[in-house]
């Protein structure tokens, strides 16, 4: 309705059927939060299963928890917390043309921290395999239920890692596209949406860390 006053940057970020960039941004944000609610429910099945089995086999879960690597888990938690603080700066800065470069730098740092997380995860997985922590015939522990703990360990961390990979791709894509068209970058709803997704990945990990790495410590 205000076609005459639309700036080139806004025009680059506008998508059909929207005529007003502010409303488009609101819409994307609402859609993203609805999607995040959906994602939470996706993980809820895992959390519910974990909780049920832990209530059935508290001792086995306690023993099995002690077998995870707190160093890897703790370091990765710190990395992810830092990355989500870094990514949180992006939507706060990206809207100012003068801070576009800063915002894109933050995107790259966030993505690199995500990669660092995955690298550590890879080393951790290797160690786990060496220690026979994959449920199966030569599984390390013998208490009934310990295998279940590690089934959930693998499922939770792997499914989280898939989300993290998607998140890294989204951050990198936004940084590349933003460098190509800095005007678009100041206006596009993709900035907010990407940052929200990254926040969710961190929220999920916060819970994963507490239920996977912390049980069974200190004897």
């Amino acid at each position, binding site marked *: 309705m205000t076609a005459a*006053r639309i700036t080139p940057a806004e025009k680059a970020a506008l998508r059909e059927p929207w005529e007003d960039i502010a409303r488009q941004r609101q819409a994307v944000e609402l859609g993203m939060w609805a999607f995040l609610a959906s994602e939470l429910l996706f993980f809820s099945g895992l959390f519910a299963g974990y909780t*049920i089995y832990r209530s059935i086999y508290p001792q086995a879960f306690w023993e099995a928890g002690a077998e995870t690597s707190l160093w890897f888990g703790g370091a990765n938690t710190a990395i992810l*917390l830092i990355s989500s603080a870094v990514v949180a700066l992006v939507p706060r800065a990206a809207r100012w043309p003068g801070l576009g470069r800063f915002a894109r730098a933050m995107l790259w740092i966030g993505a690199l921290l995500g990669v660092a997380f995955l690298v550590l995860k890879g080393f951790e997985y290797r160690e786990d395999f060496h220690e026979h922590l994959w449920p199966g015939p030569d599984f390390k522990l013998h208490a009934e239920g310990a295998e279940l703990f590690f089934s959930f360990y693998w499922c939770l961390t792997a499914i989280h890692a898939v989300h993290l990979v998607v998140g890294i791709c989204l951050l990198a894509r936004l940084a590349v596209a933003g460098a190509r068209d800095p005007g678009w970058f100041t206006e596009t709803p993709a900035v907010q949406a990407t*940052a929200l997704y990254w926040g969710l990945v961190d*929220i999920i990990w916060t*819970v994963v860390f507490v239920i996977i790495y*912390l*049980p069974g410590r200190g004897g």
Partner: protein
Amino acid sequence: MSAAGRRRHDDMPTVREIVRRPAWVLLVLLVALGLNIGAAFLPIAPFLKTAFHLIVAAGTVALIAFIFMEMEKKGPTIRLFAAAGFIWIAILFLLIFSDYGIRR
């Protein structure tokens, strides 16, 4: 509409201003992480430890959602959808434990 939301150059915050708040929150979160790890080694009953861990985790989640993800600035609709995610998890847990809590 968009004119009101349009930003003028002299309103632009400095990097310092942008970083300050998330940085403080990050500091709090890292300290909380340290506390949580430390608490895991305390010689107290496991359920007390777990309860503490979960409370710290809930606080962490709240800070990430409200500050990092800027929930603090959002209207009721978005808050409702975010809350729905958590409420529906609560429904799943509550009713599933009406079975497992009483089974056997």
